[in-house]
Structure formats: structure tokens, C-alpha cells
């Protein structure tokens, strides 16, 4: 049986989670969904799960994407090295630079082209 790489999607918008789940599944990945930053972190650091990549939305209530990213990168858990793609509606250069300097692996701007997101996912985890 071929192992399916798993992708954790952290986004507060249900429609976005649903379509990413649908599209990534179509491409042979195993998507895991989290509707806020805390759920996402719980899922990432859960030993039962194995997460190969995180797709992280920036604009979220309570804990935004930057805060989630910081918590991932500063933890002692082996999962802290997981590649992260930031999904941001903030087209501003500053937001992109901030994400990358905090350790994001790549970024995709909303509204995104799925083909672009897919190729970035493939570059990182194949």
C-alpha cells in the first residue's frame, strides 16, 4: 500500500477547508482539517498523527497564522520542522516577508490558483 502524505489545513473558513480537502484528496494526499490555530497545534503535536506539511491561513481570530507559526517553530517537538505554506489574503509584501522570516517554507496569495499551491506542495514533500 502506498503511504499517503498527510497535509494539515488550518483555516477558519469552512468553505476553504472543504475545497482544499477535496482538491488535495483528488491529488492523492491525506488532508486533515483544523478550524483554528489551537486545534491545528494540538493536531500537529499529537504523536498519533504524522503531519508532512501544514497549510496555514494568516487571518484568523484569536490566534493568527503568525502566532501559530511561531509556536510551531519554537517548540521542542520534532514536528517543529514540518514544512509550512502560508495562505494569505494579505498581498502586502511585509506580511510575506514576515511569514518567511519567521520560518514559513513558502506562501500562496488568496485568491489562489490550485495548480500553484499544488506545485509548491509537491516541491516541499513530493
Amino acid at each position, binding site marked *: 500500500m502506498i503511504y499517503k502524505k498527510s497535509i494539515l489545513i488550518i483555516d*477558519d*473558513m469552512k*468553505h*476553504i477547508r*472543504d*475545497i*482544499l480537502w*477535496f*482538491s488535495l484528496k*483528488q491529488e492523492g494526499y491525506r488532508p486533515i482539517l483544523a478550524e483554528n490555530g489551537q486545534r491545528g497545534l494540538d493536531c500537529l503535536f499529537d504523536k498519533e498523527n504524522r503531519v508532512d506539511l501544514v497549510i496555514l491561513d494568516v*487571518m*484568523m*481570530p*484569536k490566534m493568527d497564522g503568525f502566532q501559530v507559526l511561531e509556536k510551531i517553530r519554537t517548540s521542542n517537538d520534532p514536528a517543529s520542522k514540518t514544512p509550512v505554506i502560508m495562505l494569505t*489574503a494579505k498581498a502586502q509584501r511585509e506580511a510575506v516577508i514576515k511569514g518567511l522570516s519567521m520560518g514559513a517554507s513558502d506562501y500562496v496569495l*488568496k*485568491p*489562489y*490558483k*490550485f495548480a500553484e499551491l499544488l506545485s509548491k506542495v509537491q516541491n516541499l514533500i513530493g
Partner: protein
Amino acid sequence: MTKPLEKDHQFLTRTISSLTDQVDLFETFQDLSLKIISQFDLNAIFSTFSGIVKEVVSYQSITIYLFHEDGKRFSRAYPLERATQNRREDLPDTGIIHWVMDQGRWTVITDFLDQKATAITSILPIKSPRQAVGFLVMTTDVDPSLYNQKLTSILNFLASQTAIAIENQSLVARINNSNAYLTNMLESISNGIMAVNMKGEVTLINKNVTAILGIKIKKIISLHYQSFLKGNLRQEMDQLFAGILDKGFVMESMVHHSPFKGIHIMIGITASLLIDKNRNTIGIIFIFRDMSASREIERLTRLDEMKSEFVSNVSHELRTPLSIIKAYSEALLTQVKPQDHDTREQFLSVIDSETDRLSTIVSNLLDLSRIEAGKFRLDYSVFSLKDLVNSVISVFKAKPSNIDILTDFHENLPEIEADLEKIREVLINLIANSVKFSPMGGTVSITVEHQEGFVSCSVSDTGIGIPKDKIKHIFKKFYRVDNSDIAEIPGTGLGLSIVKHILDAHRGRIAVDSVLGEGSVFTFFLPISRS
């Protein structure tokens, strides 16, 4: 034996007479010096002085010169215009003048050998114990040395009294100048400044106090502040007055004040103690500031912050449905299999509802720009509010949701004259809010009633409610209650401000009642007809 007695008698008579003379002389001196010293105006001093001189010496002309501050140069001070009969200025040589000043007494300076001299010139130094103030040049027909010693000493005395009077006058002028300087400063300060003594009576005030506080009384000095300040302001002043005497230093406070009918301003008052050089408290100084300007700046700054927040909200609000529409249509085009009808159906309905959301945002933005541009017009027609409510909720009911929408229409509802499309917008905004702010599901009830000349429509929900302190802000443009700790609820902060604007334009109104965590009720009232 009578002879020595006679002698004694004569001696006594002479002595008494000379003593009487001296007493007379002293009295004259005192009289004259009082006359001169009591003058505080330079011209009055000079004319009194020359008048008295005229009584003792019959002169042809006199001229008074005053030294400059350097004590060397001098210029004519009296009379200012040269008398016409004076053909030329008979001003003696500077060296001679300074020599006479050093002598310090009335001195004749005409050269007697000069046969052509038509008059005799003499100089009377005007010297105070401190300094040489000036001198008087006098021309006489008769040789002044013929006058007796008594007269000379009277003149010298008069001159020294005049010097003191001139000195006093310049001190008074300096005090007046610095007073005027302080008054100018006081008046040019844009705040109101008022000092009171320990009894509360005004000792100093500038015009801005009357302007800021709207006081109409002209003479305020020495009135008690309680006699011209009323209401809030007087209470606040009483508290400050008592408080500062009790606690000392400086106290600040703010008070609402209405200086004129219909005008309300916020006044900031600073009170501080007035202390004299012996560290005794002698009064209180109050400074009044009109805070309206600083509050206006605060308001504009806040508006500016809300606008930039709005721009970032709007771009997020526009991008989110766009991202969703883009992602779903892309998936439909490339990934969803043609035979997978369920998925196609589901994705298309997401696209449909997100398109509705986009169009609401866009129409709100357009409304706002029309309102801002003053191009907001109503297009009146007569219609049934009940039918409109039903048509609006049918759209909401068509969408899958976990919210029940109930209606309650009272009987015999009249038709109303209003702008149908604008009222539709009001209903959409209010119902959409109710649904939006009930994230856990619940019930939205819409009730339409007929009241005297009005119809009322209330939209109530079982949602998250509005914090009490935020209710008064929710109709402001761009305002959004920060409820991020409850749920992320999208919005631009425009809906309710547009709703209010539409109702205001119809001469209607809107009321809101809300309990945090239990729900909100928005009720709007519309007149049945435009007139």
C-alpha cells in the same frame, strides 16, 4: 536797668521774627514740594515747576532739558515746541553745563563783559540725591545774583524736588509699562485665566474667560465667582475651590458647559494656588480651556483609524468570497468529474451564496459612496411591508442554515409610501446580521405592527448580543464590535450605518435592545406616508 532789658527785648523780637520767617520758608518749601511731587505726569511736573519759578523770579523764558540715560547727552523736555519769540536756542556750551551740574546750584553764566547781551542767562541744575536728572536754562532781565540768599536756596530746593518727581514719574511709567506688558500677555493667551482671593472674589481676569464661559457681565473684578457662574460650572468651581485649599498644589477637572443656548462644550479647568513671596496662600488661579477643539481632533483621529481598519476589512471581506468562488470554480473545471452531480451541485451552491455575499458588500460600498457624495435619493412608491418582508426572508430560507426564521404580521397593516429597494436593503442587513451573529443557530423573529401614523418592524434574534457600552456606537460608519473572542464574524462595519441613514432619510428611526449572550432586537419605525 531798663537798657539791658530793652536789648534783650529787641534780641528776642529779632529772633522770633527770624524764626517766623524760617517757619514761613519751611512751610513754603513743604507746600511747593508737595505741589511738585504729587504730579505723576512729566508735563504737569514741568508746568508746576516753571509756574512756581515764575512766582519768585520774573524770567523772560525758561527751557528744561533732561539728561539721557548715559548722564551726558540731553534733550529739551519743556516746552516741547520752541516759543516763537525765542529767535534762537540760547543753549550754553556743554562744558559749562556740566560744570554747573557739578556746582549743584543756580549759577549765572552770562559773560558780563559782553555788551551785546540783551538778557542774562542762568542755569539751575535739576539734581536728585541719586543723580543729575536735567537742568533749567533761564533768561532774565535782572542779574539773579541780586536776588537774596533765601530765594536762591528756594530755587535749588525746588529743583531737587522736581528731580525726585521726575524720577518717581519714570518709575511709575516703568511700572505702567510692565503692567501693560503683563495685561497684553494675559489677553493674548487663548485660555481663560481668572484669579480669585481667599474669599472667592475675582482679582484678575482676561477676556477669554468671558468668551469661553459666555459671561455677559462687564465688570467682574471684585465680584464673587459664585455671583456670575451657574449650574454645573459653579458646582465644579466650588469643589475645586474647597479641594485645592484642602489638598494644595494643582487640581484639574472637566465639566460640560453651555455658554450660550444650544451650544454645549467641554471645559477643562486647572486650579492652582497663588503664593506670595512669604509662602502665604493669597488666592487661587483658575485656567479654563475649551476642550472642543482637542476633542474634535480626537474624533477625527479615531475616524481615520476606523477608515484604515475599514480598508483592511474591506479587502479581506472582498478577497474571502473571491478566493472561495475561485477555488470552487477551478475545482469544478478541473477536478470534479462530470458525472459527480452531488459534488457539482454542492460546489455551485457555495459559489452562488458567496456571489450573494460579494454583491451585498459591493452594494453597501456603493451606498456609502453615494451617501458620502450627497447623492443619496429616495425613490418613493406605495407597497406592502408584509410582502417585502416575505420576499426577503424567502431568499434567506432558501439557503441551508440551522436558523429558524419566524414572522408575525399584525392584521390590517396599511401599505406604506417609501423607497422599496432601500427598505429591502434595511431588511436584508438586519436579518443577515441576526443570522450572522447567531453562529450556534437559533431563531430570528420578525414582527410587523401598525401604530399611529407608523408601521414598526422588529427583527429579534437569539444570538450573541451586543455589550451595553458598545450599543451607542453600532450605527457609526466603520464601527465593528470587537467580539473576536466569541467568534470570527465577517463584516465591513457599514451595514447598520447605511440602515440608519436610509431610515433617517425616510424620517423614520431605529431602536436597539440587546442582552449580551441572549440576543438582540432591532426595531425600525417608518411613517406610513411621506407627508
